[in-house]
């Protein structure tokens, strides 16, 4: 057999990336590229799935049938997004159930935003508007990610995500224009979700250990700070428009950078939540673990049924 030179393969791989040629599942890729994608895509999938929990909390208590139907459709979409992404991660040779077990054992992370509780109905508005809004900022550039299956999954996700953000903004708009109590509820939700939403973009560029390599591989197209700035720039005027105030006294338009200056993020809180000490970390993982345990008989029964039928027809 011909001896394969890894250096040569790596050079060819990077040339493809530089020319914006997508990498497909059976193509040669460096182990680190594969591992990085398995980590990132599986954690992205976990975020979609865990993200159903804070919103599922309000489905039965939605204020009317329209809101209930919308929230139900949104949560179903999140499940779908998780499934697109688990499929994408399987194309890299990862075992789907193993990646899910990594979530349950605490080895794999998911977006920290979902470790915050949803205390009022207005939180459904804040999540759609801010959390899905921040997710869109992150995901739109991922549609051009160098790995084909991930990029294609993101195209589907982004198309659907835009309804999520709009329905959230609509909830906030209605509440903000409602009774003083309703407006206060909307403002309170904005107060609680604003900073965690900014943290969704991850650590500052100087502290982000994966950014440089991921940009070189075109998995990532913008740095965390660039995306965060973009999010602040578009969201602050939206809040003003509906009469709510972003909870940051340092927010100020800065002509020289054509964007808003904003206050310092509490990174200590971020690392605490990432490290498992957020308000709902245990509850979220526990809910996922129970769902798998309680559903395992269905998985086994369906497999037994299929096996029995195959034997009969064989």
């Amino acid at each position: 057999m011909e001896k394969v030179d890894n250096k040569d393969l790596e050079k060819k791989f990077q040339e493809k990336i530089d020319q914006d040629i997508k990498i497909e599942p059976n193509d040669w890729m460096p182990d680190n590229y594969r591992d990085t994608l398995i980590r990132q895509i599986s954690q992205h999938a976990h975020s979609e799935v865990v993200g159903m929990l804070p919103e599922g909390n309000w489905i039965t208590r939605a204020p009317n049938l329209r809101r209930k139907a919308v929230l139900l459709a949104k949560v179903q979409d999140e499940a779908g997004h998780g499934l697109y992404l688990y499929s994408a991660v399987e194309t890299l040779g990862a075992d789907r159930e193993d990646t899910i077990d990594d979530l349950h054992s605490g080895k794999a992370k998911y977006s920290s935003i979902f470790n915050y509780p949803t205390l009022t109905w207005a939180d459904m508005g804040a999540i759609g508007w801010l959390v899905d809004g921040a997710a869109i900022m992150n995901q739109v550039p991922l549609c051009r990610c160098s790995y084909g299956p991930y990029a294609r999954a993101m195209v589907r996700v982004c198309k659907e995500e835009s309804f999520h953000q709009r329905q959230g903004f609509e909830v906030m708009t209605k509440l903000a224009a409602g009774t003083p109590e309703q407006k206060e509820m909307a403002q309170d939700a904005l107060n609680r979700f604003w900073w965690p939403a900014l943290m969704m973009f991850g650590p500052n560029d100087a502290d982000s250990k994966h950014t440089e390599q991921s940009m070189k591989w075109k998995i990532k197209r913008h740095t965390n700070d660039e995306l965060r700035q973009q999010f602040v720039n578009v969201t602050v005027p939206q809040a003003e428009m509906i009469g709510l105030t972003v909870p940051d006294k340092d927010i100020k338009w800065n002509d020289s950078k054509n964007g808003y200056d904003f206050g310092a993020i509490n990174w200590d809180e971020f690392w605490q939540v990432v490290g498992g000490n957020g308000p709902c970390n245990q509850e979220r993982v526990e809910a996922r673990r129970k769902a798998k345990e309680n559903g395992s008989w269905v998985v086994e029964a369906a497999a037994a049924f299929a096996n029995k039928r195959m034997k009969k027809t064989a």
Partner: protein
Amino acid sequence: MTIEKKNWPLWEVFIRGKQGLNHKHVGSLRASDSVMAIKNARDVYTRRAEGISIWVVPSNMISASDPCDEESLFEPSQSKVYRHPTFYDVPDGISHM
């Protein structure tokens, strides 16, 4: 084939967008049998009227060309420009050709 308890088989999903179009690959999913695969494909891949017909194929039944053979398989067609109509000179004044 026996289905293991841990993972249901993987299926590739193909959707026909509307009458007159080919089925097109859209992704994959796991299901215990073909009936469940079609139901799951309906829920996962056609929530927004993306299709009117679904095919599911067990992923392990698909044979694929090897990316390493790309050159030997597809390069020969690159050099045969005479297969394209633009290769030929058509005299001025000739139409319907």
